[in-house]
């Protein structure tokens, strides 16, 4: 199956993902480990584009809760990329051992 081409710009009403910095490093909570304090607090949110724009452009979206939020356009029709992962041979080994163990002497 061919993957659809990634869209480079959004038109009004497209389902899009945006991102914005909510707190710059200096504005964050005072009690953070140094590696967290050094980076900004960033948000990502999905909604319907309120105006047209190219990837990276500042736009606004209306979310499913009806809020209007502003940020940089990340993606149009954003994908979900999570999956079941690769084969984990160790788990297959666990399964084989368990099955063999239960077969031995029969299940009570």
């Amino acid at each position, binding site marked *: 199956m061919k993957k659809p081409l990634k869209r480079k710009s959004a038109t009004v009403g497209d389902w899009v993902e945006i991102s914005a910095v*909510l*707190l710059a490093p200096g*504005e*964050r*909570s005072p*009690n*953070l*480990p140094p*590696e*967290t304090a050094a*980076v*900004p*607090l*960033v*948000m*990502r*949110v*999905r*909604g319907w584009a309120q105006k047209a724009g190219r990837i990276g452009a500042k736009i606004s979206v209306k*979310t*499913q*809760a*009806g*809020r209007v939020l502003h940020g940089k356009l990340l993606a149009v029709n954003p994908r*979900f*990329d*999570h*999956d*079941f*992962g*690769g*084969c*984990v041979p*160790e*788990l297959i*080994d*666990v*399964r084989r*051992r*368990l*099955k063999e*163990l*239960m077969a031995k*002497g029969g*299940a*009570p």
Partner: protein
Amino acid sequence: MRYAEIMARREEILRKSSTVDYSGFRRGKLAFDYEGMMAAVGYSLDQVRAIQKAAHVGGTPLLELNNLTALVRKHCAKGKGARIFLKDEAANPSGSFKDRRASLSVHEAKKRGFPGVAAATSGNYGAAVAGQAAAANLRCVVVQEVFDSRGVGQPEIVEKGRKCEALGAEVLQLSVGPELFAMLLAVLDETGFFNASLYTPLSVAGIETLGAEVAEGVRAAVGRDPDAVIITHAGGGNVTGTARGLRKLGCDRTKVVAASIDIEGLHMASDAAFNKKSCTTGHTGFGVPFASWPDRADVPLNAARSLRYMDRYVSVTQGQVFWATEALACLEGLERGPAGNTSLAAALVLAAEMPADQTIVVQESEYTGAGKHPTAQLSFARANGIEVRLGDPAEEVPGQSIVIPEQFEQLRVREMDLDKLRRSYIKNAVKHAGGSLAAEDLKFVAEDIRATKEFVEQEIGPVGPLGPIGMKE
């Protein structure tokens, strides 16, 4: 948004987004009328059941795990090996027991005319709030901690975000940091939504039906009360609500056992450590701090107070949880999410200690799917530099390795020292009370950690009519 500004308005925003007047229950610097606060929910157990039934929540099957019981009996002394039951909470509408917690909040929000509900959670609770809100025609915002500064998120949380979106919520996804709470406050402030916190009396009362159903299910199956109920522990609501439900049904001798995944050494607010955990909840990173100080939550007074109810607290390794998840799938035909199997992993060890005529109940399961699955989570761990191998789980180092047991004999639990948690609670209590406890606070603390007044006094020195004495060095 200014962080300090929004945090300064914390009390006001929480008051407006709630139906509980918390200040009315306060009795001292720390002390509050816990039972009074729970009673103010205003619904009896049966009324809660009726509300949940109308929302398609609860009434989940109690399954006897015959093959896992048989597996345990192959490895323990003759006459041992308790019968293992599983409360299949994955059968709830959004796939976990969290629907019980969300149902009352959403019911109350609707009844009181709130335009929507919001919650800060990276767990199954988000989907529960989203789903319950959808069915009640309320709007919903879920605030999640999802990705690190590279923009990478654990597959388990990414899936939970997808589910919230599919159920119609706005999903506000954030990078790592405790400011999640401030962002929730900002959302509540802007929208006027109801704060569907995990830690309200409504949320905990919603779980009481789970304890009650466990009691009824076991009585129907074996004709007596469960001997032990084992509960995956993170923020404390699951332990608190389940134990309260068991007690309401009169199960006074049932042992309440909490279980968490051991992730000792991984800092919860660390951008670098965030993706080194391979389970996102049910772990000691929540379980220990919330037991030793519950009032760190997004409500003024936390209704989830686990030390009141725990008889025992054990931890298991990540590798054991993945092992148990595999065993549940291939021996019982039940493919369920890994994090919910934390208590199952511990139950396999505990069942071996118990007589064969006793019962142990694993009180929840959760749904599984893309991202929320052992192969997804272990693949992600490997991609993040975690060593995944077979071996002795005792060798697992959280954040460095996941060691999946090779043999049943390698399964074990680590006892968490309840007295140590109690002492840590006392220390926190004294700190939060400004250095000393008054007599009413002392009484409250003793009740809250299920210890004697003497135990508390040993830590802080006597609290007499002449006035309190501060923390013992």
